[in-house]
């Protein structure tokens, strides 16, 4: 190699290196300035912003939600959430559970306790403490007097089996609820869709972390993690490629591609798995003397029609129309055919809506939560009080 070629090569390499550094710095700077200029837009990428039209508290709510849900980790259930947190809109008690609206004044006779178990939709992502589903339910059931204490045992990213194990642990700890309500559907289907129908670790990937075995794996995970987190070029390339390939599934975790028959089979296995969990719940309810109701939550995947705002903001129609939606529909159809006791399908509860209640694929805004709680209250009264 001649000295001149060497010089040119050195120059070219340095120029490329410098170019990347400058682009990276430029992107970091642009993001910083954008956040200074329009801090409220940070959420716009993740949620259907129009669901919060005119709500000035929404930025505070999401800031607190993130702070509150990234603090603790309850290892036994491989669930997250769990450390005490005090905010204006989000409060978590010392036991790790979301604050629920409680009536003031003297109770009318002996109060009954209701435990509501579920994932982040029950916990109340997107809603202030007093407007989560359990809080709305407490308001509805205590309208003409104080009879019920409602507890929010929602833990983000959990699935039905984890929630049931959670209940078993509470029962073991001498908790004696009168009624137990499960609000389920989304996470289990997503988990089964991603990791197979028999998976039961919830959406947290602790299992994968434990599978890191070789020293090289540790180094690789660390390096790729740093890049994923800090490299703006990588993030930009990823987003651009996702944008250009909108016809394909762009949620990286959704990797399965099932044909019609496979989707049916996955749905069948999900339902079989769920029925076994319901049988265990039924047995526990008899042994511990509580009554229960299971509600299947609505989600974008079971809606027949999306509002324009829902289509525009954050929800990829190709994802909505994809295999996951198919598995959802087959699973709920199959569950309804099975006539499971105390099981209620609320997947159509928001049908015919004229304004957006969804804030993403499955979480609802406070008005959406209220509609669900009203349906729950109605069924609760019919099932248990009449």
């Amino acid at each position, binding site marked *: 190699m001649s000295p001149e070629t060497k010089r040119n090569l050195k120059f070219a390499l340095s120029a490329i290196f410098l170019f990347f550094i400058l682009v990276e710095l430029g992107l970091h700077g642009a993001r910083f300035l954008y956040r200074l200029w329009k801090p409220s837009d940070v959420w716009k990428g993740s949620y259907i912003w129009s669901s919060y039209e005119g709500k000035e508290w929404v930025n505070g709510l999401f800031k607190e939600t993130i702070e509150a849900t990234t603090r603790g980790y309850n*290892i036994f*259930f491989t669930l997250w959430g769990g450390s005490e947190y005090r905010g204006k809109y989000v409060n978590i008690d010392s036991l790790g559970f979301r604050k629920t609206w409680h009536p003031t004044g003297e109770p009318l006779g002996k109060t009954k306790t209701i435990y509501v178990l579920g994932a982040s939709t029950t916990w109340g992502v997107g809603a202030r403490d007093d407007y989560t589903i359990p809080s709305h339910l407490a308001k509805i059931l205590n309208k003409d007097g104080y009879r019920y204490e409602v507890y929010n045992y929602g833990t983000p990213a959990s699935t039905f089996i*984890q929630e049931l194990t959670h209940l078993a642990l509470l029962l*073991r700890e001498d908790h004696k609820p009168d009624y137990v309500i499960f609000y389920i559907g989304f996470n289990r289907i997503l988990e089964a869709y991603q990791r197979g129908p028999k998976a039961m670790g919830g959406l947290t990937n602790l299992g994968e972390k*434990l*599978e890191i075995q070789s*020293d090289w794996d540790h*180094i690789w995970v660390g390096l790729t993690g740093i890049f994923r987190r800090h490299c703006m070029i990588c993030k930009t390339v990823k987003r651009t490629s996702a944008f250009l390939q909108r016809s394909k599934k762009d949620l990286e975790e959704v990797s399965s591609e099932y044909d019609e028959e496979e989707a049916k089979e996955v749905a069948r296995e999900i339902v079989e798995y769920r029925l076994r969990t319901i*049988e*265990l719940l039924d047995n526990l309810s008899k042994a511990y003397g509580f009554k229960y109701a299971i509600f299947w939550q609505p989600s974008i995947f079971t809606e027949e029609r999306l509002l324009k705002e829902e289509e525009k903001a954050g929800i990829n129609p190709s994802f909505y129309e994809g295999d996951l939606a198919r598995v959802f529909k087959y699973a709920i159809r199959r569950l309804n055919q099975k006539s499971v006791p105390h099981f209620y399908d609320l997947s159509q509860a928001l049908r015919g809506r004229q304004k957006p209640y969804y804030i993403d694929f499955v979480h609802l805004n406070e008005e959406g939560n209220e509609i669900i709680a009203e349906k729950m209250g109605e069924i609760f009264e019919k099932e248990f009080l009449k």
Partner: protein
Amino acid sequence: MKRFVFSVAAVFLMIVFVEGGLRIASLVMWHFQKEIEGKKDPYAELFFFIYKDKDWAKDHFKELEEAQKADYESLNLWIGQEFHGKYVNIDSRGLRKTWNPESFGGKEPKKAYVFGGSTIWGSGARDDYTIPSLLSKQLNAREPSYIVTNYGQGAYTFFQQIFHLLLLLREGQRPDYVIFYSGANDVLVTYQNGKADVTNGPTNLQNIEEGTTHGEEILNGIKGLLYDHSKIYRALLRIVTLFVPPTEADAAPKYDETFLTSLTKDFVEFYAKSHDLLDHLSKIYHFQYLSFWQPILFTKQDPTEEETKLMRDPRFFDNETLADLYRKIGRELPKKGFPHFFKVSHVIWGNGNSQFLDWCHLSEEGNEIIAKKMAEIFEKEFLK
């Protein structure tokens, strides 16, 4: 520039030479050690005392090491991976092979599930000589009527065993009898954490989830690589250990009498809650159960000379404190009158032989004594 290149090359060469020298030294030492195998490591010598006349022991421990890999199952349970050896076999469900009669003469056998930690799984014993296998031999001695399944998994506590059972029941499994053998892991986690309500067993999964940043992840990988491949790194580590005393966090905890008493009270309450859940499950799913409190070395009244030496090995806990806690808990639990609870912690005393391989695992002979006692109680409780 030339000087700089020369200096870097010199440092690199020096490292290569030192590394090479240490490797050769270690190879020579290893060769020399082979002649006097066992003598250099007093712990290994004691551990292998039990196996001195057993020609299968060497292969068995090799297999044991290979077989001890687990898959994380979620809900804080882990299950062994399939393994097939001469002495150690784990089936596709992750369960240790258990001796059972080949046929039951056309009759439907009763199903007995045995839960426990590594002592039930059978660390130190061949497939046919684990406690569940020996129990199966005892129960089926007169007439083949029982099929015993070993649900032992390394490091499981009583609490985890019950939740494991709960998941099996959910799967539709219906045992007739369920046997629990616990104590060692339960008391160990209580001792390690200084509190009784520990749900994740002796393995600290929480650190995996909470403790590692990306930087730490890379550092752990590099440390691991250095530890595996660099003699210099190992030599340096040894030197550091010689001069730097263990920090308070590393030291085995020692508790005073008052704290031990309160820990005992908390443990008994925690254990009682698990027992209560088990009792409920047995009624819902119509199985009968027995819960055995296992022996540990530190509470053995008549340890042999080898076992006494084994007790002096201060590896990861303070023997006296742990023994004290175990004794206190062992005294308090029977007072609670739990149904179907039996202490078998004393049954291996008094025969003059060494039975412990370490602080809690038993030899095959020790397993047999325990299995015989279990069968005796099983018959008395359920068959008479």
